Every structure is written in C-alpha cells, then in structure tokens.
C-alpha cells in the first residue's frame, strides 16, 4: 500500500518496538514489521532496534542480509515479487515479468528512479496450482496474465493503495480436488482436546484431568488422558509428514520424558519446497484442526507454549489466523485453564522472512529465537534441546492435523488407512501440466499413475515427487507408489508434459538451491554455486562431457559431506536428470575434439529400456 510506507522512521520504529518485549528473540518479528512499514530496514531502525533489544548492530545487519524479504535498501512504494518456480515458468511467468517491467519502465531487480516500484523474482510462493503468481506488498496475486498486469500498472501509476485493489486480484483458491479421511467431514473445534483428556477413563473431564500421578519408576508426572492419547498415537503409527517419516509418538514421548522446567511445541508451516502449497490450504480452511493437534501435543508432552512458524509468503493469512486463535481462546480451547481443566497452553505466531533453510527444524528454532536461520550442530536433537534449549516437538502442519484426528478417533482407526508402514492419508499438491491442479488427499500407497489419472496428467513424461530435493519419476516408473516403503514425499507433485524440456527444470531447481543455501558449510555454500555454473555452462552450449562428470562429483561430495538435508538433497534432481533425461543435456553440449570417456549410444541403452523403445530415433 503506497500510503502505508512510513515516513517518520524514528516514530514508526518506536511504535513497533513498544509492541514487543525487550527479548532478542523478537528481533526477526520486529524486522518483518519494520520491512512492511518502510519497505526496507533503514539504518536508523537498525540502531534503534539494536539498542532496544541490547544486541549488536552487526547482529541486526546479519539478519537483514540473511532473509530474502528483508532489505537494507528501499524497494519502492510497490514491491513486486514474481514467483519463480518451474510451474510458474511453465505458465510464462518470465514473459509476464518482462511485460510488467516494460510497462512499468523498470529494470528487473532495480527500483524505478522515482522510487515508485520494483520487480524481482522470488522462490516459489506456494500458488503453483493458480500461477503464475506474485506478491505485491505482501499480498498474493494469482493467475497473472497480460490483462491483469495492465490493470496493476494502471493502479500503480494512479498510486492506488493495494488495499483498494479489486478483491479478485487476491483471490486464492483452495482447489480441493479429492478428500479422504482428513477432510471428509467438518471438524468440531475442541472435540479432539476433549477426546484426549477423557481417554482411558469415564467421561468426567475434570475428575480425570486432575488425576495426576508420578510414575515411581521414572519420576515423571503424567495424566491418564495424556498417557492414553500417547498410546493411541503409537497405535496409529503416525509418521511425520515432512518427508523424513519419523514416528510422531516416539518424538512426543522423548520430549515428554526429558526432565525440564518447560517444553515447546512447534508447528512447521514454512513449506518452502517449490511446488508445495498444502499448508496454505490447511491453514486457510482447516486451521482449527492444526491448532488443535498442537494443543493435544502440548497436553501429551506437558508443554505450555506452542509456536506456529509460517513462511512470509503467507503473510496475507495473518488476520485470519489471529482471528482463529482469538476465537479459540474465547471458547476456552487455548490459553489459561483450557476447558477448565487447569491445563494451560497458548500458541504464538512466528513469521519467517524468506529462507527455505528455515523449514529444517534446527534452523527454524534459530529463526524463532531471532537469529539467522542457520542449522545447528547435529547433536543434541531439538526434541532434547530445541527452543531455548528446552525439549521441543517440531512437527509439520499436516502431522498435527492427523494427530488431532488420532486423538479424536483413535489409533486403530487411523492405522486402518494407508499401508503397513505408512498409515493414514497424505495430501498431494498437484501442479504443472495437468487439467486439474490442486490438493488431493489419498491414503498412502496410491500410485503415481492414479494421481495422474485423477488430475488429468496421464500424458506426462515425468513427475517431480517431493519437490526439487525429491525424486524425478519417468513414465516406466508411474506404477511406483507414494509411501515410505517406496517414494517418501512431502506431498509435492509437479507434472511435466511431453513437450517440456527437462533441462530447463534442472536449471530452475539448481538456481533455487544456490539462492537458498544458508552458507554455513563449505560443500553446500560453494557446491550449489559450482553446480549452477556448470548447468549454465551447458545451457550456454559450452558444456563438455567432463562437465557432466563434474556435476556427478560435486553432487556426491555434497551428499556425503553437507551439514544438513538441504545440501545433502540439493543435487538429487541433477543426479536423476543425468540418468533419466541425459538427452536433454547432450543436445546442448559442445561437440569437441575430445573423445568422451563414455559411449554416447551405449549410455542411451538404459533410457531405451526404460521407455521400451528401439526405433531408429532412439539411437544416435
């Protein structure tokens, strides 16, 4: 909103600071608000904030330099970010960005000389099923096309505040295409908490809850309902929906059993994996279920504080989420003395500021504590020493929603869905070349082909399962199943039609990781850049077979030596692509006098076998 750009830094910063305690942990939250108020973090603000929180200026600058949505230079009255996921590109986001820049008379990445507007690309904004997408002063604009751009230019020229733009510009659809047990019925707020607290006993909530005892063997205080709910969670065999699949019950029990004065429950809503948008839909339409899952977790492990960590791209959900939290407090489902049982638990929202790495749990905790989102040392795990070094359960949005249902309906019921080692259902974010992109809920064990059939994408040549850090699946593999037994996934499902050049996919993903590497460890910091440079070299027609070997070598180094999952999985798509779509690489390669170490035609044999082809066009 152009009018909202604050003009009196000192006064405005003071106003923001007054709303926050003098806790260094508030730093990122303060910076986010300052960025929204000024469209940058002015030098004057850096000093005021540093003095207020008693941290160094260098520390404050360190955060401004780390998070993508914080800036130390003014970004204009209108700040436009164009989502740069491959699915946006497939919908001509680059052409639209070019058109927008030319209409506005602004260079990509620069602020117009009159300070009115800037346009730049950003990592996936989670609107892949309704792209190409953008963020204008923090508000999502979906389904961008030239007509929309023309009108945006009109509004910007007329200095019309973003709050006065027609609401259809900011219309975000849920695009629910298929629902299963998670979404089939409406969720009654409070039902899961009541079920948890009364589990294993008669129905008198109060009497049961106060039946606290200390287990003489372990010295741990427990409540019958909490203990019984944990047992249900064990029976459910619920595994973390973030992709790694760690069993929720083990995490919760570990957290509960460590002696500590305080514990935390953190909900990971930082879905930064390009092509993922289920948290957005869950928090838009099923926020109660998610928050209730967190509350149940708090009750089971004995935590008093929950933290919902959300990516900055979903800032537009702030009023909605604050309203849901307020409503739950009013209904006695959050805050002091929940349902008059004596149990207290509240949830605070923490905003991310543009950093994929913060989806990694220890980096997220650093961010929650107001620091750069740098992954911590491997040990101790967050469940032992997380937020403020206290035992902390970190689960994602979908896991907490599923946990709420387990509390409500029991573990055996839950385990009746899905497969032997992957119980329950999974949300899939379907985007790309298909007729019906959106959210699909299936029991675990669904095949790639089945999803493709339902979304109208059977003609695809490939599917990127679980995002750029996941697996590239080609046609002969379409009968593989989505479950921890085969393809484990965060739920991202990007479909690529036959006409797509798969090298362009690789180029987009490689640059994504280069942009998102946190810079802590050598292999990821330097490796992601080396890989981006190598891929660009091939794209520029200067690649040689040696470069492909180099990609393999650097990828292997990163997988083995990178500090965290980001660096270890960043090369996955390259390794897949070099095997499965080598042709898309080789057609760009320079013909050199150098005799390659491998036989080009022989190396196609695997692709011929996979595709079941042996015609002339399948040979060199």
């Amino acid at each position, binding site marked *: 909103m152009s009018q909202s750009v604050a003009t009196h830094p000192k006064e405005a910063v003071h106003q923001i600071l007054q709303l926050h305690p003098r806790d260094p942990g508030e730093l990122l939250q303060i910076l986010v608000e300052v960025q929204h108020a000024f469209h940058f973090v002015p030098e004057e603000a850096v*000093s005021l904030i540093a003095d207020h929180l008693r941290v*160094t*200026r*260098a*520390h404050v*600058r*360190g955060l*401004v*330099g*780390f998070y*993508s949505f914080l800036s130390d230079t003014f970004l204009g009255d209108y700040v436009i970010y164009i989502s740069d996921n491959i699915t946006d590109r497939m919908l001509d986001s680059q052409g639209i960005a070019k058109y927008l820049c030319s209409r506005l008379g602004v260079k990509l990445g620069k602020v117009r000389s009159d300070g009115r507007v800037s346009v730049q690309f950003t990592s996936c904004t989670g609107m892949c099923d309704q792209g190409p997408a953008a963020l204008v002063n923090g508000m999502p604009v979906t389904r961008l096309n030239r007509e929309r751009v023309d009108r945006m230019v009109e509004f910007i020229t007329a200095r019309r505040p973003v709050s006065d733009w027609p609401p259809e510009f900011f219309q975000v659809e849920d695009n629910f295409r298929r629902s299963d047990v998670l979404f089939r019925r409406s969720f009654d707020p409070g039902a899961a908490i009541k079920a948890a607290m009364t589990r294993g006993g008669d129905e008198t909530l109060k009497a049961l809850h106060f039946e606290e005892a200390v287990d003489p063997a372990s010295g741990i205080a427990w409540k019958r309902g909490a203990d019984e709910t944990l047992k249900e969670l064990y029976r459910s065999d619920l595994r973390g929906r973030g992709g790694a699949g760690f069993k929720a019950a083990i995490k919760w029990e570990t957290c509960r059993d460590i002696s500590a004065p305080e514990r935390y429950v953190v909900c990971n809503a930082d879905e930064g994996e390009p092509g993922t948008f289920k948290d957005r839909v869950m928090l838009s339409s099923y926020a109660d279920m998610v928050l209730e899952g967190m509350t149940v977790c708090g009750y089971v492990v004995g935590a008093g504080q929950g933290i919902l960590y959300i990516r900055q791209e979903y800032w537009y959900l702030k009023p909605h989420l604050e309203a849901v939290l307020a409503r739950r407090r009013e209904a006695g489902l959050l805050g002091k003395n929940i349902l008059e049982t004596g149990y207290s638990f509240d949830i605070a929202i923490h905003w991310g500021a543009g*950093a994929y790495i913060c989806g990694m749990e220890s980096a997220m905790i650093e961010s929650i504590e107001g620091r*750069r989102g740098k992954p911590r*040392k*491997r*040990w101790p795990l967050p469940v032992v020493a997380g937020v403020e070094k206290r035992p902390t359960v970190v689960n994602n949005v979908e896991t907490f929603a599923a946990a709420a249902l387990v509390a409500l309906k029991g573990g055996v019921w839950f385990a009746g869905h899905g497969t032997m080692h992957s119980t329950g259902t999974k949300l899939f974010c379907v985007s790309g070349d298909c007729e019906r992109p959106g959210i699909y809920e299936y029991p675990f064990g669904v095949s790639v082909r089945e999803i493709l059939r339902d979304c109208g994408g059977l003609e695809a040549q490939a599917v990127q399962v679980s995002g750029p850090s996941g697996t590239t699946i080609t046609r002969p593999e379409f009968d593989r199943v989505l479950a921890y037994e085969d393809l484990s996934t965060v739920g991202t499902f990007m479909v690529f039609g036959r006409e797509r050049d798969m090298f362009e996919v690789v180029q987009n993903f490689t640059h994504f990781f*280069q*942009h*998102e*590497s*946190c*810079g*802590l*460890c*050598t*292999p990821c*910091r*330097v*490796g*992601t*850049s*080396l890989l981006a*440079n190598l891929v660009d070299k091939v794209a520029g027609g200067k690649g040689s077979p040696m470069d492909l070997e180099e990609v393999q*070598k*650097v990828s292997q*180094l990163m997988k*083995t*030596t*990178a*500090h965290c999952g980001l660096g270890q999985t960043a090369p996955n798509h390259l390794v897949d692509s070099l095997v499965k779509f080598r042709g898309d690489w080789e057609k760009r390669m320079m013909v050199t006098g150098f005799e390659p170490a491998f036989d080009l035609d022989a190396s196609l044999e695997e692709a011929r076998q996979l595709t079941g082809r042996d015609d002339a066009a399948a040979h060199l």
Partner: protein
Amino acid sequence: MCPDSAKTFYLDNREIPFKEGQTVFDAAMTAGAYIPHLCHNPDYEPHSSCRLCTVIVNGRPFASCTQPAVAGQMVQSDTPELREMRRMLTQMLFVEGNHYCPSCEKSGNCKLQATAYELGLQDNHFPQFFPKRERDASHPDILLDRDRCILCGLCVRVSRDIDKKNVFAMTGRGIHTVIVVDSPSGELKDSKATAQDEAVQHCPVGALLLKGKGFEVPIGERIYDKASISVHSVEAFQAREAVHG
C-alpha cells in the same frame, strides 16, 4: 558400565581410547591421529562448517568435531574417498575467495595453505569465482581482508565468547555470506576491536592480520615451514591436553 579407561572405538582399524563426552575428533587427536580441519579450534565451541573433518561412523558420514565418541564404533577417516573429498573441499575454499599465497603475510602460518600442502593439492581445479569483497583497512592495528576469509566463524565465536565484545558477525546468505563488523559505520576503526583481541589472533588464514608485523618471522621459519600441519596440530593438541587434562 565399563570404566572410562576401558572405552575405545576404532579409527581406521586402530583402537582409540576416549573419555565420556569426548568427540571423535578430540579422542583421535589425543591419540595422535590427525584429522584435517579448518573451522575447528579445540579451545572453542565447534562450528562443524568446513566439513574437512568428516569421517564415516558405522557407515554414515559425520563431522568428527561434533560427533560424540561411542564405545566400539567403527570410524574411517584416512580413506582414498575421504582424502579426495577433503581435497575438493579445500579447493572449494580456494576458489570461492581470492587467495594469493605468494604475497600473503600469513603464508607459512596459514592453516588453509598448510592443509592444502598436507592433502597434496596440485591446483584449485574448479574455476575461480573472483568475488568482489570489501577490504577494511580503517583500523590502525588490524586489517580485515575479506578476500582471504574462509567463513570458519572463529572470529565471531572468539569475540563473543572470549573477548566478550561481539565485534564480528556474518551477514548475507549462501555464497554471498560475509563477515561484518559491529560499529555504527560498519568499519573496524569505529569498533571495539583491539590488536590484543583473541579473535584477531585466531584467524586461521590471512583475513585478520595485525598491521606492522610484516616479515617479523622470515619465510622459511614459520610454523608450517618447520612442521607439517598434521604433525604440528597433533603436537599442539596433545600439549594442550597435558595442560587442561
């Protein structure tokens, strides 16, 4: 429970004793087995960022500087694969910055250079990035040359934990990560840094140099001119252990 003295693990098939709470790295160095490292200094909290000390523990890779030693575990460190990976990591550190050993005052005392010799580096292999980084020569006694920085974070940790000054921090992200100085101007001259700061002494490379000290020790008589880094760092580690126990 077996007594502390009986606890051992295997490093490259050699039995290494360790004390409860010791890391694989510390136990190995105490026993005289060198593991290459750059960001770690045993006097300070480990950072596990350079990844040179990566070892294979029971088949899985871990940074030995933060990996707790466990009785009976099998650790591989001196293998052809890990040696090659350490070479590549060192080459990466050379190409991401601007390192000019022949004219660098740190030459002979530099851990990056000494490690490169130790690992048998013949060249940088990867194309140079040639980044443009700001140099801060504003301070009368200290030079901060970001070109030579390997982002080990030692100055940040030591200034925070030992000097209690918090002079240094990191900003930027990924390949654009750089050291920043805490002062109103962002320059060293306006900061609390002094030539006596431990943070300045512990830079493993030539990113933080004391002015007016050039060639005080002639080339040829410097730390790693006299002993390779493997020999020197094991000796230094064991001497430290003898003092601190």
